[in-house]
């Protein structure tokens, strides 16, 4: 018989009462997920891991910063903390690093094409990271976090129309920046 796991909000209340096991459970449950999110902003594994560690330690140091009476889900609230830390760190280190580790998943046999694909992905990652903050967040939430437009709009505190406009602008910018790698095959 499967035992029901305590939800995040219950674990947070336990952390506020000084329960370290609850903190460990929360970290094990969410660290990988928030690492993925941080990596999209930082495009660097060490920085992304540091961001996640800093966010969790902030929560551990002062668990009262999560207010249960506001009835905000932990994942929504913690998402903002991680994103804010990423944006603050980006301001500190303004130069965008090119990512060094990528997994090529198309399985093409030709080495030249593979190298070109790798180059395009590295450049794309850097271009996404250098988009304006709101455009970048909209793109990450909708494309990589698989959120619906409505959910993402709520998370960014904008209307659905504004979110769609942010997405459109982000894609237009990326198409221009990546034009050397995108070939129009129509006509």
């Amino acid at each position, binding site marked *: 018989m499967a035992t029901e796991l305590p939800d995040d909000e219950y674990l947070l209340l336990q952390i*506020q*009462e*000084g329960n*370290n096991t609850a*903190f*460990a459970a929360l*970290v*094990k449950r969410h*660290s*990988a997920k928030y*690492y*993925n999110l941080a*990596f*999209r902003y930082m495009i660097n*594994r060490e920085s992304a*891991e540091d961001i*996640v*560690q800093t966010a*969790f*330690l902030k929560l*551990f*140091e*002062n*668990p*009262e910063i999560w207010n249960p009476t506001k009835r905000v889900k932990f994942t929504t609230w913690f998402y903002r903390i991680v994103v804010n830390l990423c944006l603050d760190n980006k301001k500190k280190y303004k130069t965008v690093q090119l990512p060094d*580790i*990528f*997994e*090529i*998943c*198309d399985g093409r046999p030709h080495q030249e094409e593979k190298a070109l*694909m790798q180059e*395009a*992905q590295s450049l*794309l*990652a850097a271009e*996404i990271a250098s988009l304006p903050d709101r455009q970048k967040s909209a793109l990450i939430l909708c*494309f990589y976090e698989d959120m619906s437009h409505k959910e993402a709009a709520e998370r960014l505190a904008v209307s659905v129309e504004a979110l769609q406009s942010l997405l459109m602008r982000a*894609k237009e910018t*990326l*198409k221009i920046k*990546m034009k050397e*790698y*995108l*070939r*129009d*095959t*129509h006509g």
Partner: protein
Amino acid sequence: MDKNKQLEQLMSAYKVPLVSVSLADRIILAATHVRQRQSIWGWIDRMFEEFKLPLPGYSLTSLLAIGFLVGFLTYDHIDIDIANIGNVYVASGESIDQFLDEDEALL
């Protein structure tokens, strides 16, 4: 294939490198060196969580608190001269004679 599709394909192919297996453990270990801060309001909240009163109880407690407050605030305005309190109420010899004379007159 148009540029939109190509871009989306390129974006899908962009994978995040796997997280270090030790990240969660590292965070938990780092937390053991962090001193937790407890706000005074959080502590008070938790303490009073145990003492739930019915609604009339809160009214009576508030009334009592207001009573104390008013009492303490008006305390200075009551001018009691403790040093002379005995003298005020001690009857003089003249007033006793006068009182007895009044009684005798009636008789």
